[in-house]
């Protein structure tokens, strides 16, 4: 490592102001702070002496995402092998197959998004930020495995430029860039995000007859009056445990609640993910779904009667509330605001799922909506707090005046 550091420092002059390659300074800085701790110190007070910086926070998120990504490789390959009727595929075959499908998507996202980030860093003279490592991974695995690579490139470009860079880079943005890209793709190419696309079919002739592509949510929303949603789901092969483990089709990262929970525990233990947001989301969904369960069964669609423990493992809820909603930049910043923000998302998820026939899986859109509302929530939480303090101080002052 000493050798690397010496090498970096030997060439540092080239990149400093006045050097030949000064315009490439962000690239140099990125290497140095990625490999080592940057030697910069604060020039004036306040001096925060804490080992936790943006780099460490973002790397923690990446570590928390590892179980999800590993499971994604396995499950995508498994779905491919099932749909294409490759009978004697072993677990290792699933892995390699999944790797071949998922890896290009992730790579395209990292390369295109990374290039844009570097370009903006050089032109606008800001540092290359580790935040992109998270965006560039969250975005591709929120897509269905059949997404064409050019759409991945388009989505990540839109997300990074419009969602982040025009605001000035990481920390200045209002919306989660991964969600902006995802939302943009979702509304531009809606057919890519519904029905059969979740099954990786490369060779159309070999598909099993009657292999339906409906996801549990689409299925649940279309159960006819008078029938039980749970029965319909079980009949189609979606039991509670299948959905919890995630051995089924769907957007790449969303299927397994278990893998996401492992990542969630890492985020919670390290304190990187805001537990208030996650708890708020679960509470919001629980309250909304439970009150829907109380509606008269015969005048509303059967989906309203589905119990909460099914809602929790269905679709992309667990993954999104753990990794997408807790983005520290775009979520609410005040503590009480985090509760409100989480609950808002949870309630909206339930409403969109049950009441919106256009897109049943609205978790990511709910979080985008939450992002838009977060500054307003913060503003009013702060206002209420200020008012409370004013009342307190006034009453205290009058007490002192008396005594």
């Amino acid at each position: 490592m000493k050798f690397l550091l010496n090498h970096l420092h030997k060439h540092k002059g080239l990149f400093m102001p006045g050097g030949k390659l000064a315009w490439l300074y962000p690239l140099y800085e990125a290497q140095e702070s990625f490999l080592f701790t940057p030697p910069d110190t604060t020039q004036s007070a306040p001096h925060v002496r804490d080992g936790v910086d943006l780099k460490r926070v973002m790397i923690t998120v990446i570590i928390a995402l590892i179980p999800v990504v590993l499971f994604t490789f396995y499950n995508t390959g498994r779905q491919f092998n099932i749909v294409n009727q490759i009978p004697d595929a072993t677990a290792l075959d699933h892995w390699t197959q999944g790797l071949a499908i998922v890896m290009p998507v992730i790579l395209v996202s990292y390369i295109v998004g990374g290039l844009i980030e570097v370009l903006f860093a050089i032109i606008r003279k800001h540092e290359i930020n580790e935040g992109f490592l998270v965006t560039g991974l969250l975005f591709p695995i929120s897509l269905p495995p059949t997404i064409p690579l050019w759409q991945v490139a388009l989505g990540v470009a839109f997300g990074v430029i419009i969602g982040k860079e025009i605001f000035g880079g990481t920390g200045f943005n209002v919306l989660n860039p991964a969600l902006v890209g995802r939302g943009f793709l979702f509304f531009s190419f809606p057919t890519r995000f519904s029905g059969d696309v979740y099954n990786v079919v490369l060779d159309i002739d070999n598909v099993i007859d009657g292999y339906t592509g409906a996801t549990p949510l689409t299925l649940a929303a279309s159960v006819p009056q008078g029938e039980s949603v749970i029965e319909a789901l079980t009949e189609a092969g979606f039991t509670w445990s299948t959905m919890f483990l995630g051995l089924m089709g769907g957007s790449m990262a969303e299927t397994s609640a278990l893998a996401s929970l492992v990542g969630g525990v890492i985020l919670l233990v390290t304190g990187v993910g805001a537990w208030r947001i996650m708890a708020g989301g679960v509470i919001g969904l629980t309250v909304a779904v439970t009150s829907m369960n109380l509606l008269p069964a015969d005048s509303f669609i059967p989906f309203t009667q589905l119990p909460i423990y099914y809602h929790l493992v269905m679709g992309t809820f667990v993954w999104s509330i753990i990794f997408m909603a807790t983005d520290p930049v775009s979520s609410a910043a005040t503590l009480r605001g985090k509760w409100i923000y989480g609950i808002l998302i949870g309630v909206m998820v339930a409403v969109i799922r049950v009441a919106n026939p256009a897109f049943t899986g609205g978790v990511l859109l709910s979080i985008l909506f939450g992002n838009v509302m977060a500054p307003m929530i913060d503003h009013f939480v702060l206002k209420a707090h200020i008012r409370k303090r004013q009342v307190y101080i006034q009453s205290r002052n009058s007490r002192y005046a008396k005594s």
Partner: protein
Amino acid sequence: MHYISLAVETIFINNIVLAYFLGMCSFLACSKKVETATGLGLAVICVLGLTAPFNWAVHNFFLREGALAWTGVSALAELDLSFLNLICFIAVIASTVQLVEMILDRFFPRLYTSLGIFLPLITVNCSILGGSLFMVERTYTFPETLVYGFSAGTGFALAIISLSAVRKKIRYSRIPAGLQGLGMTMILTGLMSMAFMAFAGIDL
């Protein structure tokens, strides 16, 4: 139940700013501070809630085809004055705003001063006229118009207050020189309406 779903639909799904892009001028211009935006939002709720029912009455008792049948004169009953809709609506809106202003000034001076210039300004806000025109186009009944007016105003208030809070946040952002101010606000409006698209298609 019907009225609740109409209200939800108007506030979120058919948000008058973010789905129809009406009232853009004041939406973009008066969203720099949250306090101003709140004032304008309240004023729009107030005026839309009043003018939509007034215009409903004007339309249904005077201008609509056959609206004058209540006079009992057959020549009048055949008249179709709906070509006067636009000009009458504008007149009604302008006079209502004047009236509201006087009433507020007399009885609620605090609210009057906090709304300030926005009350007269929204006379020419297109979302107000839009609200009345939608009321005609969708043939709302009177109670529906009441609900519609208030919830369209609420939708406007929600949109402008959240935009102003977002703009307060991006005051610290490093926005390129060419995009500062209105340019960024327009991009934000686009992103916001993308987020509001989450509701598009909800069938209540």
